[in-house]
């Protein structure tokens, strides 16, 4: 498997996920400190570093409370003379950027690289945020790979650039790069033992304010000039020679889509592939566009390259026709693929794409017209299903379903907006439910409910909670404590007794935390005791002040793995059809994918290989029909 390839000491070829190639690149650069908060599409970087941590034993790793802390950890290590690496998803940089902008000013010491991954199409993010502006806005060099090979090579190179210019370097990726597997020629692995430094030996000054900030600003403008000069010459900005007076400028995965599209059309246009987003290689771009009549710019999301290249063309080649987003050929929406690029190329050259893609899509849409959708859903055995059912029951009994406002947060439980729950009046960003609740508590007559998971609690919810308590706000807060950061792959967090690679860590005592802050009421429920949870939830909702409901039960996927580790079996449940009266509470109110209808007798049936044996469905059933085979 590919983790084995990450460990290899030779320099042969390997088939690797780009996220694994990034890890390999950092290891080849002899990285010494790594820190992360998980987030798709970067989580496998964290997971891979965790998996090989013991094997190497010569770097230090932390799963941080949030991305800002992770970036600061890497920065602190760099100041202390240790090469460091950090990665996060697009919106993670929003959290980290406060420190990132200052780091842009202060600079750093040992090589420090930060990967940020944008998610065009918002596969698993709250927006199609374009993170390319961070580099320019903070004067921090930013690079972008297209393949697994480049992901490895550019990570390694980024450490050198960072150290040479004493600055953070950001590597920007997109989902289709992170989750691309390809052949990678490994470099040699020369690891050195981990050794703590003495501050006196490495010391520098890392503060910025007022007059110091103004002096630093002048310095970073000089630094940017030097980096630009280096970037003009790097092999990661390169030209593929071609024919004609129409050229393409592109970057990242769009380079690959463009090359394949040209291949399909038997076209060979000259292509400038950009590897450095900031500073852009302006001279190289100028030389490339000077002889052209037409330029096609292929980039997803905003016209970042297009805007800057259009400005350059004004002086260098004012008659250049630019085909991109402003011309209406490409969209700022969604992610691109070969057909999208091929269709634009074909239209520009007044020819036809290699296949009638529109007809293929149209036929497929017709064939799929009746195909039932498969929306994301809580896993079988998920405790959130029980918590949300009990919450709905509590609202029904209190007769206040229409007198509440529900502020959702980021995690698996975000899916509470889907049927059968249909909750979610707001959902913005990690921890945002608390701040939004403060505003709503000031403004609405209704009962204000907020919901966070344990990882989100420690990530960004704490200031919001302190704020609510301080202002005596009347809010009910659910904390869904499932032990891990579930959605991104069950990583450990401050709520776990473990850190990366299952090394020991201290678990924060959640009840003590809320007691210490002065929460007005703390209620703990077990979502698997679903029925018994209704009354405590009702009481908690009726309480004045900040009332906290901790719903505690392991994430089913994590719990199953822990059971397996302990040699325990997962016993699926069955439906006792003699008892079952076809009430379908388990179907209507519960939406468990292990529950189906047996078409022979129209009674509920539990799919054995999907069932997790949680028996939450028995709790929901008015006649207790589901049971565990062999009692219990």
């Amino acid at each position, binding site marked *: 498997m590919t983790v084995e390839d990450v460990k290899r000491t030779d320099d042969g070829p390997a088939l690797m996920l780009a996220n694994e190639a990034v890890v390999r690149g950092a290891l080849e650069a002899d990285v010494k400190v790594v820190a992360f908060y998980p987030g798709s599409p970067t989580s496998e970087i964290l997971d891979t570093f965790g998996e090989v941590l013991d094997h190497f034993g010569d770097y230090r790793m932390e799963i941080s409370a949030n991305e800002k802390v992770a970036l600061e950890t890497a920065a602190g290590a760099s100041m202390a003379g240790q090469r460091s690496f950090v990665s996060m998803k697009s919106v993670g940089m929003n959290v980290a950027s406060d420190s990132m902008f200052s780091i842009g000013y202060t600079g750093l010491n040992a090589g420090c690289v930060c990967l940020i991954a944008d998610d065009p199409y918002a596969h698993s993010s709250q927006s199609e945020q374009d993170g390319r502006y961070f580099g320019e806005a903070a004067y921090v060099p930013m690079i972008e790979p297209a393949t697994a090979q480049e992901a490895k090579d550019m990570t390694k190179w980024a450490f050198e650039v960072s150290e040479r210019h004493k600055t953070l370097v950001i590597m920007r990726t997109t989902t289709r790069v992170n989750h691309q597997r390809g052949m990678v020629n490994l470099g040699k692995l020369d690891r050195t033992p981990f050794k703590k430094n003495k501050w006196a030996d490495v010391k520098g000054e890392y503060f910025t304010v007022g007059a110091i900030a103004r002096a630093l600003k002048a310095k970073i403008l000089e630094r940017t000039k030097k980096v630009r000069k280096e970037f003009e010459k790097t092999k990661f900005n390169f030209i593929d020679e071609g024919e004609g007076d129409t050229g393409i400028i592109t970057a990242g995965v769009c380079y690959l889509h463009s090359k394949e599209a040209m291949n399909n059309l038997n076209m060979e246009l000259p292509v400038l592939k950009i590897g450095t987003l900031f500073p852009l290689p302006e001279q190289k771009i100028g030389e490339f566009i000077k002889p052209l009549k037409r330029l096609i710019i292929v980039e997803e999301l905003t016209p970042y390259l297009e805007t800057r290249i259009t400005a350059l063309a004004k002086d260098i080649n004012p008659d250049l026709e630019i085909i991109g987003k402003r011309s209406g050929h490409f969209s700022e929406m969604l992610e691109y693929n070969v057909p999208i690029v091929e269709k634009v190329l074909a239209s520009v050259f007044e020819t036809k794409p290699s*296949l009638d893609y529109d007809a293929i899509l149209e*036929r497929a849409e017709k064939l799929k017209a009746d195909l039932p959708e498969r929306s994301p859903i809580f896993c079988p055995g998920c405790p959130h299903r029980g918590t949300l059912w009990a919450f709905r029951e509590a609202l029904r009994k209190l007769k206040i379903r229409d007198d509440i406002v529900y502020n959702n947060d980021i995690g698996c439980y975000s899916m509470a907006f889907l049927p059968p729950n249909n909750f979610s009046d707001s959902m913005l960003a990690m921890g945002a439910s608390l701040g939004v609740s403060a505003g709503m508590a000031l403004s609405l007559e209704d009962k204000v409910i907020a919901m966070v998971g344990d990882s989100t609690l420690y990530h960004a919810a704490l200031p919001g909670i302190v704020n609510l308590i301080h202002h005596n706000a009347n809010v009910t807060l659910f904390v869904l404590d499932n032990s891990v950061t579930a959605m991104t792959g069950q990583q450990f967090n401050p709520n776990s007794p473990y850190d990366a690679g299952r090394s020991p860590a201290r678990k924060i005592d959640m009840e003590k935390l809320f007691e210490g802050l002065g929460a007005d009421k703390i209620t703990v429920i077990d979502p698997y005791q679903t029925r018994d949870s209704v009354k405590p939830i009702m009481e908690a909702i009726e309480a004045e002040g900040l009332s906290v409901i901790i719903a505690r039960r392991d994430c089913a996927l994590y719990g199953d793995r822990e059971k397996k580790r302990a040699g325990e079996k997962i016993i699926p449940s069955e439906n006792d059809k003699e008892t079952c009266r076809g009430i379908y509470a388990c179907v209507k109110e519960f939406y468990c994918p292990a529950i189906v209808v047996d078409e022979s007798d129209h009674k509920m049936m539990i799919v054995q290989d*999907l069932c997790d044996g949680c028996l939450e469905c028995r709790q929901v059933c008015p006649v207790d029909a589901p049971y565990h085979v062999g009692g219990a």
Partner: protein
Amino acid sequence: MEGTYNIMFCGVGGQGLMLLSSILGKAATDSGIKVMTGEQHGLSQRQGSIYVHFRMGNPISPLIPYGKADLMIAMEASEALRYIEYLKDDGIIIMSNRVMPSVAETREVALDKDEKTKYYTIEEIEEKLRQVTDKIILLDSLELATKAGNPKTENSVLIGAVTACDDFPIPADEVKESVLELVPPKTVKANTKAFELGQEAGGDCLG
């Protein structure tokens, strides 16, 4: 190998699609064939729709263009239809006959008092797929896996069937070796049998 051979893997989260893709990735690499994939990771919930674009030879983009997959391997039948735009006309589909209903569908079936609303059937799916290709290897993968001695060897059944396709670029022995190397050691015997049963069944389907 010359040119590019594209496989669209699809299924439902939790079925082991990533392992299947790793097995073929290893087999191809060991045979000296270049591989590139576009994978769907991300939200880790079970029972969602998932896919892997698996490309061999000289692909450039990680994503297969619509209508250019030579082969589709579906671990769940309705997922074959969900990604049908990727299959070329007359491409091969190797699919399990298992249909895993979505909760929304179960709700509709359950709440129809007249019991007229039925689940989407494998026959309906097959009829639609046949409008794109007749080369369909429909396998009762669970039954074959159970026959092999372990119901969890469905993946090996499907992958065995792959080697029955004439123009499949990786030699059958390499694929088998890679399967046995990557499955848990205790299950090697059942997986060997499952692979062989899949190979036979695949050969029968394609005639």
